[in-house]
């Protein structure tokens, strides 16, 4: 139990009034950063990094990781209230979180999201505490083929999830891939689909598309329906926390599944965004409430949030033990470590035990402090919905425009956002599912390049994906997931009840 002793020593380092104060400041800043689209956790940490150079490394990293926790919490707020994901990993939270808010259950959705973020993060921290060195070695096994397998599994676990027909899902997903491939090809440097337009060089940025498709599209739909956006049901009740917590224990299985998926994706490093999609996909498939997902099911908020935060937290693990950042924010933190003169890697645990265990202890404390802070603010957040629609609607359009602009500092993106908004409205109306499109847009580039790298290594031999147990196992699992709807449909047919289940 060396770890336990070291951890207690770490708590002794982290538990000082100064450090707690830094946590409160960091989480407040983080929530603001998470709420504003276009200011991601990575940006926020990067902007504030210079401020920390004069602090002691432990104090500095506590402040910066607290910002990170705050941003993770904050991303959920706008997703639930306005259908605008503040962060890429909160896209999956909108699928059920926003319908819940429309049904007048915004407070429950917020409490559910915050609580499950906390559970996911704590699970990951516990794993970091006890398994750090062992798990880190596992991450080194990942090559292009394994990466593609993981991405394939994410897509597969999400296939056929939309409300529309299978062909609309397919068209929507392929459109996402096509949009993702616009711009500079990362492997050969060729320009694809830019047609001489400089603005297209960077491709379609995921955040611009998401802000347009979800944010602007939602505003258009709400306007058409005649301002049913906030609804008189958005009553404020102070017992939201207790009311929601009572519902959570029966979802323990979803929590466990999402924690495992999240940790695994964080370490590998798949990242928080695919983790949240995969968590949602798996929960939809395996949960008893699965068929209600997308209509405002609390479990549909819990699953992606837990997975995203387990991933976001465990992404710090490879950074500490190997010096490989598991997420963009971890990469910025890594830069900070180097500036403070700390060399990440296996030796960090030996040379700087105070720092490492202080950091790990601050992860526990930071999450507890963060949870208490955001939970007390839930009535306040939910009250935003009571602001009259004719103020909220143009304000959201302005915030969306700011968010789209800051992605690349280009007005072109703001115009694109408006076009994506119309697309989002039309797709919604005609039941082209948006989640597959967004997923393909996020992962399309990575999936394509790891596929091509793997193919390059194997000289075009597709069996490279079954060349070892790890990769082969993931691929096979992915194939099973992909054909699961078809298999259940077939089984229903052979059972002879005449009803062919639609792959939905």
């Amino acid at each position: 139990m060396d770890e336990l002793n070291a951890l207690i020593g770490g708590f002794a380092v982290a538990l000082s009034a100064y450090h707690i104060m830094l946590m409160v400041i960091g989480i407040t800043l983080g929530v603001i950063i998470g709420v504003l689209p276009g200011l991601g956790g990575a940006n926020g940490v990067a902007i504030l990094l210079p401020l920390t150079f004069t602090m002691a490394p432990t104090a500095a990293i506590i402040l910066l990781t607290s910002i990170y926790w705050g941003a993770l919490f904050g991303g959920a707020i706008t997703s639930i209230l306005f259908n605008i994901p503040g962060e890429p990993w909160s896209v999956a939270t909108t699928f059920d979180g926003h319908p819940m808010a429309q049904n007048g259950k915004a407070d429950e959705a917020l409490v559910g999201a915050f609580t499950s973020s906390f559970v996911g993060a704590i699970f990951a921290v516990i794993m970091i505490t006890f398994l750090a060195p062992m798990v880190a070695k596992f991450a080194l096994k990942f090559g292009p083929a394994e990466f593609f397998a993981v991405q394939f599994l994410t897509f597969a676990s999400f296939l056929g999830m939309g409300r529309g027909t299978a062909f609309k899902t397919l068209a929507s997903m392929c459109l996402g891939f096509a949009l993702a491939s616009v711009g500079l090809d990362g492997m050969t440097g060729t320009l694809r689909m830019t047609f001489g337009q400089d603005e297209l060089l960077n491709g379609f940025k995921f955040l611009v598309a998401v802000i347009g498709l979800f944010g602007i599209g939602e505003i258009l739909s709400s306007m058409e329906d005649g301002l049913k956006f906030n609804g008189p049901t958005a009553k404020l009740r102070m017992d939201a926390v207790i009311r929601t917590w009572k519902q959570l224990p029966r979802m323990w299985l979803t929590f466990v599944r999402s924690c495992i998926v999240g940790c695994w994706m964080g370490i590998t490093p798949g990242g928080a965004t695919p983790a949240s999609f995969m968590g949602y996909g798996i929960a939809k498939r395996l949960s008893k409430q699965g068929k209600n997902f997308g209509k405002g099911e609390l479990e549909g908020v819990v699953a992606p949030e837990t997975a995203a935060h387990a991933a976001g937290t465990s992404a710090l693990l490879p950074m500490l033990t190997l010096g490989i950042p598991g997420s963009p924010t971890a990469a910025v933190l890594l830069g900070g470590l180097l500036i403070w003169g700390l060399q990440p890697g296996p030796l960090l645990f030996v040379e700087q035990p105070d720092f490492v265990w202080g950091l790990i202890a601050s992860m526990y404390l930071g999450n507890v402090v963060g949870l208490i802070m955001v939970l007390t603010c839930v009535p306040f957040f939910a009250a935003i919905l009571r602001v009259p629609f004719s103020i909220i609607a143009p304000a959201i359009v302005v915030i969306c425009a700011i968010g789209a602009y800051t992605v690349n500092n280009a007005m072109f993106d703001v115009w694109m956002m408006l076009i994506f908004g119309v697309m989002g409205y039309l797709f919604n109306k005609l039941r082209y599912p948006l989640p597959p499109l967004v997923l393909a847009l996020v992962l399309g580039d990575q999936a394509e390049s790891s596929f091509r790298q793997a193919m390059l290594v194997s000289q075009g031999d597709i069996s490279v994906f079954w060349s070892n147990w790890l990769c082969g196992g993931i691929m096979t699992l992915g194939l099973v997931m992909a054909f699961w709807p078809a298999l259940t449909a077939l089984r229903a047919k052979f059972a002879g009840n005449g009803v062919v289940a639609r792959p939905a």
Partner: protein
Amino acid sequence: MSTNEEAEGRPLASYRTLDIAVAIFFLVVCAIVMVDSLRIGIAWKANEGPQPGLFPFYIVLAMGIASLVNLARALPHTEEGAEAAVSSVGLGRMAAIFVPAVVFVLATHFIGIYVSATIYIGAFMLFFGKFPLWKAVVVSLGIAIVNFLMFEVWFLVPLPKGPLEAALGY
């Protein structure tokens, strides 16, 4: 998504029309991507791997096939397809937010995002929300100032600015 025709005004487009239009949009995208993919090559090159056009080409091939199926399904006249998807009243309300939004983005090019946002929010409150003038002015100015402080002053994120901000020294 049900529309009550008496209350919701004249129907403008049916689901069938929209479905066909979107399927054709997909096919146009498909054609554009295919042409460009063929230009940069879709073959397998020894020691170089797949050429950059290979992956998008087959992706949009799948998209094209799926869209043809969608188009074929949308074409026959059905009861469901004949239902009105967009009514004149709904379109009017959407235009009330969207057309000013386009003007707002256009104005951002010239007078900066803060001034145009103030006008956009204020005007929408005044004309659509029927707020009194002073409330519209206070709220829209407040939102713009908070945003200005947040982005320009605290987080140092530069947003498009116009002559007013220049006069204030930013």
